[in-house]
């Protein structure tokens, strides 16, 4: 009875909001969101390099070739940007200063990964595309180790 009265009195007073939110959707981070686009970049780079230009004079074949090449380039560009965005989210939102103490090369790794994403957009470089995926593997290992979980590296392709 008295508690009910107390509750009623409390509920008559004004109330304000105090946020105790997390950065992301409460800890849902996974480096696979970087791995998948990085794999796509490598795949598109290989496909561009393997694409054969048709013989001169075959306009129809040339149109098909140009269309395919444009699509490969467009996908490579788009997926490299996604890989860059997703890795930056992990870097700035998931990793904290205490992780830097354990992984002193963390900042350098993410910085170079972002640079590789840009290089993969600018160039058709198998070397840089492979290097990008290799960096994503390092991020994967660092991330899951920081969570105390043993998640083996795998690729979809």
């Amino acid at each position: 009875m008295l508690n009910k009265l107390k509750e009623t009195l409390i509920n008559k007073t004004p109330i304000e909001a105090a946020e105790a939110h997390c950065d992301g959707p409460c800890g849902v981070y996974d480096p696979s969101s970087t791995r998948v686009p990085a794999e796509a970049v490598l795949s598109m780079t290989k496909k561009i390099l393997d694409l054969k230009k048709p013989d001169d004079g075959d306009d129809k074949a040339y149109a098909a070739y140009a269309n395919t090449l444009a699509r490969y380039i467009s996908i490579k560009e788009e997926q490299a940007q996604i890989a860059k965005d997703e890795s930056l989210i992990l870097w700035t939102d998931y990793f904290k200063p205490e992780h830097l103490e354990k992984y002193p090369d963390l900042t350098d790794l993410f910085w170079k990964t972002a640079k590789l994403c840009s290089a993969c957009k600018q160039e058709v470089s198998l070397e840089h595309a492979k290097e990008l995926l290799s960096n994503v593997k390092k991020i994967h290992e660092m991330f899951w180790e920081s969570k105390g979980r043993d998640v083996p590296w795998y690729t979809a392709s």
Partner: protein
Amino acid sequence: MGELPKAGWKETALLLFDLRTRYLVEGDSMIPTLTQGDQVSVDRKADIAVGDIVVAKHPFKKSVTVIKRVREIDENGRYFLISDNLEDSNDSRSFGYVSKTHILGIATCLLN
């Protein structure tokens, strides 16, 4: 981590006489001490010490008020605020130390 006591009649009276402010907790970054929907009474004039749960203005988002725990007070009197739920939370690890002008008060008890 210190838990907050339940409000007694004294705290209720202080609230009714506007000597305390009632805040609603939104989010889970203060778990296990506070959870979504909890209500706390805040003393706007109490001295702040390490370990206190405080309500503060976000240093970079004017419209946002946060509730965090004081982990450290530096030599310049600035406060390092941390979440009780350390994983993935937005606190002084991302927005840095906050000045006393940002602190709105100390949570003294639970109202629900």
